[in-house]
């Protein structure tokens, strides 16, 4: 493994900007550079492209080995598209994904090789299982496709079933429709682990479950992470769950990263006004401390024609002229913690009245 990883060097410049290398001890396992995906909308007489949904518009981040990166944002912000781009279920328009030092694509790591390293669990536990395959076949299918002998693949399926807390003797012959939602999601997790990946992408993997079952599955995910030394990319709209599982959090708004940093810093002192609004929209769970005023008005704007400049300026309480003209870049706001935000207010000398005058921290 280590011999291979020296072969291709991680491109420095862009990736270097985003945490990772700063803390030094753990190297990035996944790095994403300027990933972009526009979905064309066709129409008119000649079926020409009349507009683009800017689903993911130039995002970059790194995931370190063994950590959990939480990705949060409202619906339509591009969280799921990002996951699908990472898995190459959708081909990106531009940008690179580098896994363990190797670029995914024609001249680097093959898709097959990439998928041995990275697997995904989807939100809809039923739709993501083949209704005609038994549980055993479902889990053993991946390894068999990747050249594991049938007998070994079946043994692996049984072992994994036990690992995800289902008795192999009871479940191995069953079909997906015979299982409850929580059980199906355990099967999906077992299937994702069947190729012994290093990275698991969890796209709203617990969102459709009841709270009591969600807690069981979260406990399971934590156990598996420890036992198999996994790295998670955990996508969710549930801010409480993301707070619970993540080491670092990435906040997305309309296809762009607005803030990224360690979970405690993000939740304790969010710097981007969108992150602040998102966090204050969390129910307080305290009857004596109910919300009195909504933190944001209106729905997220349409990603087809996103607002100019900073995409959040139409809902931002601090927006100034500048915000609609120039889009802010993701900049370091807390060097010690490695927290980045894309806001003119945190960018020294940006011209926003609330911005610090000049660079205070070097």
């Amino acid at each position, binding site marked *: 493994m280590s011999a291979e990883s020296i072969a291709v060097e991680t491109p420095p410049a862009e990736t270097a900007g985003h945490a990772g290398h700063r803390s030094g001890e753990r190297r990035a396992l996944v790095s994403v550079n300027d990933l972009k995906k526009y979905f064309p909308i066709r129409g008119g007489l000649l079926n020409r492209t009349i507009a683009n949904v800017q689903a993911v518009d130039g995002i970059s981040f790194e995931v370190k080995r063994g950590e959990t990166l939480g990705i949060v944002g409202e619906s339509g912000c591009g969280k799921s598209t990002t996951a699908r781009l990472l898995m190459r279920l959708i081909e990106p328009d531009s940008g690179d994904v580098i896994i363990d030092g190797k670029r995914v694509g024609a001249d680097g790591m093959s898709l097959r090789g990439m998928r041995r390293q990275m697997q995904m669990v989807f939100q809809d536990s039923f739709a993501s299982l083949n209704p005609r395959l038994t549980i055993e076949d479902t889990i053993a299918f991946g390894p068999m496709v990747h050249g594991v002998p049938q007998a070994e693949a079946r043994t692996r399926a049984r072992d994994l079933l036990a690992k995800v807390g289902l008795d192999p003797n009871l479940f191995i012959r069953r079909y997906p429709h015979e299982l409850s939602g929580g059980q199906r999601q355990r099967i999906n997790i077992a299937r994702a682990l069947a190729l012994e990946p290093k990275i698991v992408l969890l796209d709203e993997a617990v969102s459709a479950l009841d709270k*009591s079952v969600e*807690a069981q599955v*979260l*406990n399971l995910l934590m156990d598996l992470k420890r036992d198999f030394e996994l790295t998670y990319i955990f996508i969710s*709209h549930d801010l409480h769950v993301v707070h*619970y599982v993540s080491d670092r959090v990435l906040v997305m708004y309309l296809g762009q990263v607005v803030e990224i940093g360690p979970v405690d810093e993000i939740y304790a002192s969010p710097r981007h006004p969108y992150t602040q609004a*998102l966090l204050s929209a*969390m*129910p307080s769970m305290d*009857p004596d401390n109910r919300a009195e005023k909504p933190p944001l008005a209106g729905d997220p704007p349409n990603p087809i024609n996103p607002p100019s400049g900073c995409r959040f300026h139409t809902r931002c309480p601090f927006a100034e002229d500048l915000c609609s003209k120039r889009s802010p870049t993701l900049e370091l706001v807390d060097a010690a913690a490695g927290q980045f935000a894309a806001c003119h207010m945190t960018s020294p000398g940006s011209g926003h009245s609330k911005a610090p005058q000049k660079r205070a921290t070097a």
Partner: protein
Amino acid sequence: MTMSVTEAPTPLAAGSAPDTATGRTLVDVRDLRVAFTSEDGTVHAVNGVDFTLDRGEVMCILGESGSGKSVTMRALMKLLPERKTTITGSIMVDGHDIIALDDAAMSDLRGPTVSMIFQEPMTAFDPVFTVGDQIAEAIRRHESISDADARKRALELFELVQIPSANRRLDNYPFEMSGGMRQRAMIALALSCRPSLLLADEPTTALDATVQIQILLLLRQLQRDLDMAVVFVTHDIGVAVEIGDRIAVMYAGRFVETGTVRNVFGHPAHPYTRGLMNSTVKGSMRGTRLQAIDGSPPDLSRMPPGCAFAPRCGLAEPVCFEQYPATESVGERHVAACIHARRLVATAPGEAITKAEASS
């Protein structure tokens, strides 16, 4: 058209149960049971629900999928498929015996007396008519009013639910609106005939957090301004805390614990309520293992004879599997159906309690 049903504030206590002393009781449900029959057997969705609701009061039913919360709501609205459903018990809403009413009389009641909002407003609206037309139609169904006046009312309603550029939005088709906007339009439709009881079935579940809080605040404000009684169904404790005065925790078709928000979440007395609270993830639980409830909810077509929660309960005694526990009063308007209720109510919510401690 058996009776006049506008928002008459006169206490219509016709035949209502004992505690109508104040004449404020709007809903009185006694021993409600709902079962669905099919070829595969009988599903017992609701198994004996009792509650009363005063005018202007908000009750929140908290439960997981399959707990019977939505079925209870639909029974109040008489929306369950008649042929396959067996309903027993009594449901009195504003003096009307809902179970006995025929279809025509029930249609007259839907709108002015009881009205409902659903989780997915896209499926609640007709996609081929503008929302403005649909609201005007609902008003004209119940009141003799001109087209122009109905439209004016629809506009007022849109302003009431804070839809920006209301006049233009009335001419939108449902698909032209965003999720949050559609839910506001749905609320406008539900309020169009000034109901005295609003049923809200997970109206914010499909919405983003930032939009959810807007809708919750709107509902709370409208409820106060219009002095409506609201039954709000949710699976989310966070939402329940934001909206409810009273909480009813539902499990396998029964209310297992009821009380004020402060009592139920401050001093939970039923093991299921405690389990639900402990398995609701909060950021402060970081680094600790979640105390999940083991197992999964019971199969409603094969209901166990005793407490339905017993197989998942760490405190279950042999008697729990045999007979359903009596409801224990553990505080002012705070009751729970558990043999350990008194012991549990005195133990802090997050604190584990052993079987020995519980029964001592």
